[in-house]
């Protein structure tokens, strides 16, 4: 029996306990305090999990080599828990307005977060695969949780069918890598394969694994599902999954490729370069032509996966310092992307009328006059997504492009800069519409001269997103040190 190092999985256990607690609370007869009890169980679990994440210390492998607790797992777990903690209050208005099942909704959200935390801690292929399934299965259900909404059903169905297909890629790839390495554990995997020459099996395996993760990250050419799924899912679910899955998937991909298959970098390096370049171009060009802001943000999330993959591509460099810089930049970018995109999706609910989210650009016309604060917060988020200083998006892109140039991936940096310039157009279009367009007169719909009522919970979430975006942009040093520590302990 491997020694059980409970402190390693404390955060996961706290989140799981909260999820089970919420479902158990639902069994009791309804009382007036029922809803707040469920809500506070979620917060309590998340706060306990963040508290249990403490402690720097050396990387520890536990549970017979299945799990690892290191700076990378802590950095990503913190990002995932932050996204979950913001997604819970952002979900409450939608749950109330659309009559969703509150306890089940929040329990699935937390179970998905637990799967993500296990994913970034996974140190063997089996645990990694199962964690991907836990987080995906919970998200398939969350996408379709608005059962009476045809778009939500369509979203869940598409995500499920294509997700199952991607699971096949991932699992087959893992089977081939196991066949080539003779072990499922990441320690010793690279040596087990022993370089790429003569091991076609390992090359085929790692290609399939990268394809499987590319699907989860929404990277082109595996991005087809993203716009439809993100558009149809309830907006708080979209906000959560667009950021948390990417953080978790990127963490696991970095651990697997850089930590587990460092000797095979000449096999997965070119793949990462190809995916990053294609994803940046496809995401940005797709976002240009969208009429719906939600779809635009979906394409934008594809584009940002491409930027984060620049870091993974740079990490294929044989120089350890460049590899660390690449992964560190990708991790920092994932954190920056998390705060700005989560805020932007929640803004769509915040900017709408009760019961109707802002969807098209027209809905946002003249918003600055009706809701100056909301428009100001969204402006910060859009400026950051476009990569303009002094925001997180700028610092994130700067460190990424710098890492790419140092690692010799000048082409990727050039594509990144050009596509970012394209991105400025559609991100700032939101700002222009909010500040300079007049709301259109639509027959049968009066234009309210005054601000309509809104949910303060949503306002707080957007404000926290915008504040963190500025914080990461103005004081990036602590976070960059954290991500560098996470990346440097990753290398074997």
């Amino acid at each position, binding site marked *: *029996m*491997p020694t059980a190092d409970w402190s390693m999985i404390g955060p996961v256990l706290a989140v*799981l306990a909260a999820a089970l607690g919420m*479902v158990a609370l639902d069994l009791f007869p309804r009382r007036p305090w029922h809803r707040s009890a469920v809500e506070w169980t979620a917060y309590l679990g998340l706060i306990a999990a963040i508290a249990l994440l403490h402690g720097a210390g050396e990387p520890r492998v536990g*549970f*017979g*080599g*299945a*799990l690892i607790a290191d700076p990378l797992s802590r950095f990503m777990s913190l990002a995932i828990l932050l996204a979950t903690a913001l997604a819970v209050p952002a979900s409450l208005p939608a749950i109330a307005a659309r009559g969703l*099942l509150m306890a*089940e909704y929040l*329990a*699935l959200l937390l*179970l*998905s977060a*637990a*799967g993500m935390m*296990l994913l970034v801690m996974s140190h*063997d292929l*089996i*645990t990694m695969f*199962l*964690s991907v*399934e*836990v987080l995906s*299965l*919970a998200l*398939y*259900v969350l996408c*379709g*949780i608005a*059962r009476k909404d045809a778009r939500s059903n369509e979203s*869940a169905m598409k995500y499920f069918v294509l997700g199952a297909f991607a699971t096949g890629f991932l699992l087959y790839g893992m089977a*081939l890598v*196991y*066949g*080539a390495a*003779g*072990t*499922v554990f990441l320690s010793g995997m690279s040596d087990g394969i*022993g370089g790429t020459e*003569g*091991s*076609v*099996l390992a*090359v*085929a395996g790692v290609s399939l694994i990268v394809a499987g993760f590319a699907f989860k990250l929404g990277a082109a050419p595996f991005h087809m599902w993203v716009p439809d799924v993100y558009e149809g899912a309830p907006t708080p679910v979209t906000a959560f999954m667009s950021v948390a899955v990417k953080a978790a998937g990127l963490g696991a991909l970095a651990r697997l490729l850089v930590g587990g298959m460092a000797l095979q970098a000449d096999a997965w390096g070119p793949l990462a370069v190809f995916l990053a370049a294609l994803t940046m171009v496809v995401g940005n060009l797709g976002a240009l032509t969208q009429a719906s802001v939600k779809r635009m943000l979906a394409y934008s999330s594809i584009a940002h996966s491409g930027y984060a993959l620049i870091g993974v591509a740079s990490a294929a460099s044989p120089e350890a310092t460049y590899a660390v810089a690449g992964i560190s930049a990708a991790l920092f970018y994932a954190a920056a992307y998390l705060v700005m995109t989560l805020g932007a999706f929640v803004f769509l609910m915040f900017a709408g009328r009760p019961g109707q989210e802002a969807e098209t650009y027209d809905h946002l016309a003249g918003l600055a006059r009706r809701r100056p604060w909301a428009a100001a917060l969204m402006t910060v988020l859009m400026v950051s997504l476009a990569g303009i200083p002094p925001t997180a998006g700028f610092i994130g892109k700067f460190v990424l492009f710098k890492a790419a140039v140092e690692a010799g991936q000048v082409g990727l940096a050039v594509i990144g800069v050009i596509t970012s310039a394209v991105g400025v157009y559609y991100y700032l279009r939101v700002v222009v519409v909010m500040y300079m367009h007049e709301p259109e007169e639509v027959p049968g719909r009066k234009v309210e001269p005054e601000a309509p009522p809104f949910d303060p919970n949503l306002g707080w979430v957007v404000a926290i997103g915008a504040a963190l975006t500025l914080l990461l942009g103005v004081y990036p040093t602590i976070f960059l040190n954290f991500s560098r520590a996470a990346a440097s302990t990753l290398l074997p």
Partner: protein
Amino acid sequence: MIHRLKGIGQDVLSDPVFAACAAVAIGAALLMVTRRNPVYAALWLMQCFLAVAVVFLKLHAPFLAAIHVLVYTGAILVLFLFVIMLLSLQPHELGAEHSRAARALGALVCAGFLAVLGAAALHGTRGAAPLEPLRDVAVESGSKTLVITAEQWGGVEHVGAELFSRFVVPFEVVSILILVAILGAVVLAKRKL
């Protein structure tokens, strides 16, 4: 156990029973994906599963072979057939064929991947550890150490001991996965809540 499998893999390639079962499995899988009628496809899938179960036997995994027949052939496939028959799709409901270009592209990708796998089959075992006979292994479980003899290899006791010692985390994660699946099924499918 893991290191030895590589050696066993090498040995199995020269085994006529394995060769026959592999041929049946591949043939059945090809027939399965090319059938238009989903019931026939499901039946070919069953044939494929049975052939794979024999391959598990040849790989010294008798427990896995039995479970494979019971769970996949017995439970999951019957469920497939029930669902297909309940839906009773008509040919026109199955959707249009893909365009010629899409099919050509698909065939090209498949052929490329087959070539890679073929090359892997030819080269993959090069440099693999030489075949060793099955030996007794000791599985530590708590304070006790369980000795698995060559006859017990891959049996219930062996699988159980590994599952609850070295692979206890994946085992527990599966329980979370099943919990999510149950919760999700109730949330999505229950008519009235």
